[in-house]
């Protein structure tokens, strides 16, 4: 089976004031089958940029170099803007952190899902699209799809808004879903619920998932495999269930600095950043 995603030596850099380029992502390679891959790291580690490069939604001033970037056999480095637009939304979807900022504030949420469907296939009639949108809302466990369909984003709670986002992304049945901190803006109780909905849909449709998060424990519970990123590098590639056997001092440090409900009350261990981690 060929890989769904194959990235070799991805570099993303941004121009600085003095004209030189600063690498934010330094040589990331990853491959993904139809599985759930977690990318973990602190802010600035390059995890979001990696996901965004794959979708092709980086700002135009970012400089990207990559040896190979393929999606299901399609060479993304050679794809035209038109091809990439067709892939986005159709075969690759993305969920961002805060539904408040990713939904259109002046459009009913149901209409936004219908829009997504009809952009994909103009031949689908309005009525049929509406029916599909309803069914999709139901499959993300929204109890009264008829009512929610007509609501505007500000009338939804965070968890509900995120479920609408998920519905909108999955209604086109993409092969790959990139979820960038999908639950960070949500409450703990809602968080599990939203994740289990993503899990259910991803598993049922046999999709690939890249879950980007700063929460190590959440990712390890939810994904098959975890990449740990630090300063633009992948420092460790782990089977999620074996997270606690991590060997890299950075991963171990991240695990140790979390307070736990039953943990000791002594000062928490903090990370002593080693310059060699960034160079590795």
């Amino acid at each position, binding site marked *: 089976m060929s890989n769904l995603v194959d990235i070799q030596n991805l570099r993303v850099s941004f121009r600085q004031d003095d004209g030189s380029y600063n690498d934010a992502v330094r040589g990331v390679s990853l491959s993904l089958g139809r599985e759930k891959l977690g990318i973990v790291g*602190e*802010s600035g580690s390059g995890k979001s940029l990696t996901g965004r490069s794959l979708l092709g939604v980086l700002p135009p001033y970012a400089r990207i170099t990559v040896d190979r970037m393929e999606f299901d056999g399609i060479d993304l480095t050679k794809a035209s803007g038109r091809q990439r637009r067709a892939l986005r939304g159709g075969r690759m979807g993305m969920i961002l952190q805060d539904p408040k900022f990713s939904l259109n504030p002046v459009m009913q949420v149901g209409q936004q899902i219908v829009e997504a469907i009809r952009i994909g296939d103009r031949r689908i009639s309005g009525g049929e699209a509406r029916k599909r949108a309803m069914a999709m809302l139901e499959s993300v466990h929204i109890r009264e799809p008829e009512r929610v369909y007509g609501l505007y984003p500000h009338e939804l*709670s965070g968890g509900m808004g995120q479920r609408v986002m998920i519905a909108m992304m999955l209604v086109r049945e993409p092969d790959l879903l990139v979820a960038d901190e999908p639950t960070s803006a949500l409450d703990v109780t809602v968080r599990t619920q939203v994740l289990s909905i993503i899990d259910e849909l991803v598993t049922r449709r046999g999709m690939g998932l890249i879950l980007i998060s*700063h929460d190590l424990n959440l990712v390890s519970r939810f994904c098959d495999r975890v990449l740990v990123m630090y300063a633009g590098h992948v420092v460790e590639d782990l089977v999620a269930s074996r997270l606690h056997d991590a060997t890299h001092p950075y991963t171990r440090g991240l695990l140790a600095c979390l*307070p*736990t409900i039953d*943990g000791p009350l002594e*000062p*928490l261990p*903090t990370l002593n950043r080693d310059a060699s981690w960034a160079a590795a």
Partner: protein
Amino acid sequence: MIEIEHLTVRFGPSTAVRDVSLTVQDGESFGLVGESGSGKSTLLRSIMNLNRDWDGRISINGLDAHSTPRKRLAREIQMVFQDPYASLHPRYVIGEQIAEPMRINGMANAERRTVELLELIGLGAKFRFRFPHELSGGQRQRVSIARALALSPKILLLDEPTSALDVSIQAEILNLLNRLRRELSLTFIIVSHDLAVVSYMCDRLAVMRNAEMVELLTRDELRGRDIKTDYTKALLAAS
């Protein structure tokens, strides 16, 4: 000491806090846990009088929160907000932000004290002339803690002080807060959605849901799973 009796906060037709009474002793660290919309931040903002429209009684170190002038109250109690990106003035240098409350209150030696505060929170005097955008999230949160301490208050209200930060930085800020509480004998009220943080930081905690306080627990009760309400159990299971 903070005494809250029958606090009710209404916004139009909806009730954000319904009949909450609690007492926080001097030197105690008290946690408020609950989902968004449960009223925990509103409770904090009412204590601080950022929201002035409430019923009930709040007394802070013996001062009535409604009738005491703001300047007087500010010397007793200060607040640290969730998002250090939003709570600092983008065009003030760090030194000015920290000195401003002292200037408003006509305190002498504001400059010397600013340097002391910067040393206290572990940044150092050289940060005085930097702008907020030149600092990382964790450094900014340190600055807002320093600013809150400028008037030497006895009580700090912390509204999700670490939820906008990375876990590695969270550990540093929590350690800093614990050290400050010990050295300056402060009283904390910490709002958090993270039970682990509250269990680590707080001696007692209240669980809020739908504007009401559903359970009051000590740390030992939480750790011993001596929990009475189903809601707290669900919260515990989710984290």
